[in-house]
């Protein structure tokens, strides 16, 4: 039964993730007065790449990198419940908690970093270094906000946190939400924090040496992981969801915000984004934390 549940979660995340990615490309195009690709373009690309040959192999660890990254993304998904009340689509969340999810989210980047490192492409490692540097910076405000939320709900169980919000946390604790949103934009790899992948113009980034089915695996895990992160944010700050409709519109609103944010701002250099993230959102988060805990007493 649990296997079926997990499979359904995975399939949902895969499809919704890719449709969201298609929407991202489409909507960004409209921002830039282009027509853009169809919504299903990335999905088709992913399927197509699964059947393509790879350009080159750098040994077994090179292949294990994307696989570990995909494992990390799927594990993250499995430990985040989709709905706060229902038994189905809760995955393994009964066996884990928010701390576990926070750490599982880091597993993928580290696994991929191994694969990129063994590829020996300096541009790939450049992306990894940027990614890990951005990672710790974006985690700081996010952790403060999440820790405050855990303390407010007196639980580290995600379903409990989602269900215990009478006023949703985004409105009850706006400062924490704003701080977490900055981190979230960075987590989604959006501008102004998108120097890691540098998706359009620079020939660098973690994916530079991968091709064929492994590139496709990286794309798929990215779609799944994005959806998992969206669900996590909805659970933590937007009061969770009680059904598919609620989950989809809440995640979509959040996603739309991220796209809009990214479409407007230019890109930070790595040190700039670190500098920004450990200053502005962190201060907001700390003030929010002090407010939240003072409120609670």
């Amino acid at each position, binding site marked *: 039964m649990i296997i079926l549940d997990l499979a359904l979660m995975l399939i949902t995340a895969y499809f919704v993730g890719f449709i969201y990615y298609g929407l991202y490309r489409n909507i960004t195009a409209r921002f830039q007065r282009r027509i853009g690709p169809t919504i299903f373009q990335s999905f088709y690309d992913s399927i197509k790449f699964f*059947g*393509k*040959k*790879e*350009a*080159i*192999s*750098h*040994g077994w*660890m090179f*292949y294990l990198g994307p*696989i570990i990254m995909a*494992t990390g993304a*799927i*594990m993250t998904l*499995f430990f985040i419940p989709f709905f706060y009340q229902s038994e189905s689509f809760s995955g*393994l969340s009964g066996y*884990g*908690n928010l*701390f*576990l999810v*926070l*750490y*599982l989210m*880091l597993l993928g980047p*580290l696994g991929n970093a*191994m694969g990129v*490192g*063994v590829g*020996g*492409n*300096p541009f790939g*490692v450049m992306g*990894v*270094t940027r990614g*890990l*540097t951005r990672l*710790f910076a974006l*985690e*700081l405000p996010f*952790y*403060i906000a999440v*820790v405050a939320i*855990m303390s407010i709900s*007196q*639980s*580290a*169980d995600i379903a409990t946190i989602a269900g215990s919000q009478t006023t949703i946390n985004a409105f009850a604790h706006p400062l924490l939400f704003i701080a977490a949103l900055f981190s979230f934009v960075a987590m989604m790899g959006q501008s102004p924090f998108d120097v890691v992948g540098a998706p359009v113009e620079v*020939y660098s980034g973690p994916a530079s*040496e991968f091709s*064929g*089915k*492994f590139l496709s*695996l990286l794309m798929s895990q990215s779609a799944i992981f994005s959806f998992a992160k969206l669900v996590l944010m909805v659970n933590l700050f937007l009061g969770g969801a009680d059904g598919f409709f609620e989950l989809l519109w809440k995640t979509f609103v959040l996603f739309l915000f991220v796209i809009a944010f990214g479409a407007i701002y230019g890109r930070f250099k790595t*040190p700039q984004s*670190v500098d920004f993230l*450990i*200053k502005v959102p962190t201060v907001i988060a*700390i003030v929010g*934390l002090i407010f939240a805990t003072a409120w609670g007493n």
Partner: protein
Amino acid sequence: MRVLSLIISLLALWGVSTLFGSEAHWQIDMGSFGLEGVVIGLKATALANFFALLIAIGFFSISLIASKYKLSKGFYALLYLLLVSLFLIVYAEDYLLFFVGWEVMSVTTYLLFSYDLSREALIKYIVFALASAMSLLGGIMVLYSASHSFLYTDAHQGFIALSATLQVIFILLMLFAFFIKLGVIGFHYWLMDSYEQSSDFFTPYLSAVLSKMGIYALIILLVYVVDIHMISGTWLAYTLAIMGLLSSIIATFKAVNEDSMKRLLAYSSIAQLGYIVTVLSMADGLGGALYHSLIHTLVKLLLFINIAGIIYMTARSKFSELGGLIYRMPQSFVLLLIGIISLAGMPPLAGFASKFLIYTTLLEGGNLLILSAMLFASASAFLYIYKLIYGIYLGHPTSKRYETIREVPLAFLIPQYLLSLLLIVAGVYPGIVIPYFNTILKELRLETIPFESYTILGSEMASYNGFVLMSAFVGVFVLILLFMLSLRSKAKEAKDRFDIAYCGEVPDEGTHLHYGFSMGKELKRVGFIGVILRNSSSVFYDYISRQLFGFATVFRKLYSGNLSFNFNIAALFALILLWWGLR
């Protein structure tokens, strides 16, 4: 000698294991030796047994690699003496024997260092070790002035009887002594050079076990003397929390910028011990501190032995001189990977268990800012952790020699396999050590850790199931692997290491491709991290040393080597003394 050391380490393991659960106790009244009222003793408490086990595991691990090092008989003798002194420290029931053990430990470590360290590093070490010992002695004397007993059981009464000022002085003296041993940031000046230059055979022990004596001493101080129940909200708690956090954060960023493998791991040690110091600032934190001590001992043994193997094979100790060893040393690579995953505290291995326990303790105690800062330090650690594995095993080989190099000898691999097995088992069964920790906590009259089963760790606020986690992880991993294998597509193997996508250019021998060893350099440009990276505690100590030097010149002017002059001065002093005495 090598076999003997292995036998002794096995005996130590066996001896410690027999003491588990026993109430072995030995006490002697020194009155019969002319020291009225002085009672000393040894006692096998559950806490002492735990740290004794760490000592024995560490010694066993390094005695396995001893066969690869040409160590003199004197070195072995000192090593055994060190072992005795460590057992004396943990089993002592009073501060007198504890001090003897501490002093012997410091001096034997100095002598062991003297085989390898440069003169400067040796002087640094001995100055700090002596400062630590003297400060400890001062603290013990202050306490004795009120308790009139060295026994831990009388220590709390004595501490309460002290005046408020003396209490502060006592705690500061003790903290100074222990912080030096722990290498808390600011007190770590001696530590870096000692770790870097000491024999690769001895460094694992230094990091994994000797530093734990600082933790043990801190626990003794907090539990027996100060009473950890009353610690919350006091200045002592804040000092521990802030010093611990500063250690974790500063050492983490310092580690990113190191080019030497051993220095990077030395900073990592400081950072990890920082977590333990921080969590000890809470009354409920002892469980997490013990768990993290255990994991840190296992991980640091594993990592330092791994690096010892690399240095043994390549005779290089810098990231900039290594690289690309993965397919030459696949076993070492996988073992280091297990080590760094545990060091980072990533699920599903055991490193997560101890960190999780620390986090839930902090969350339940309501120390939210400390918790956030600790999570931040923990996430920042990814940079140096990646640098460690990339610099050695990934990227490009920096020398043609590495294309034909072989796997490290079995002597290095065996202890690593044993240690990583322990880490995996503790990852699947994170609750396996909790019953024993609860005996320790009960014995110290502290709140126990909730225990359900071996696979579950956590409390009401948060818990996780290690078995489900590991099975799901392995399951997902295998499924993806099978899926990828089922897709038929054959890629051509890279012909040589230059066969990469390189911006349309073709790299050759002269192209600098092992780029990542210098990662972390750009962090200098970030505001507060740059401040950390540019500054060093050596500025302060250099200032102190200059002032002392200046002060010493005054005496050197008096003692100029001119005998008659010195004699006259001495005579003058003698006369003054005589006059003063007669008056």
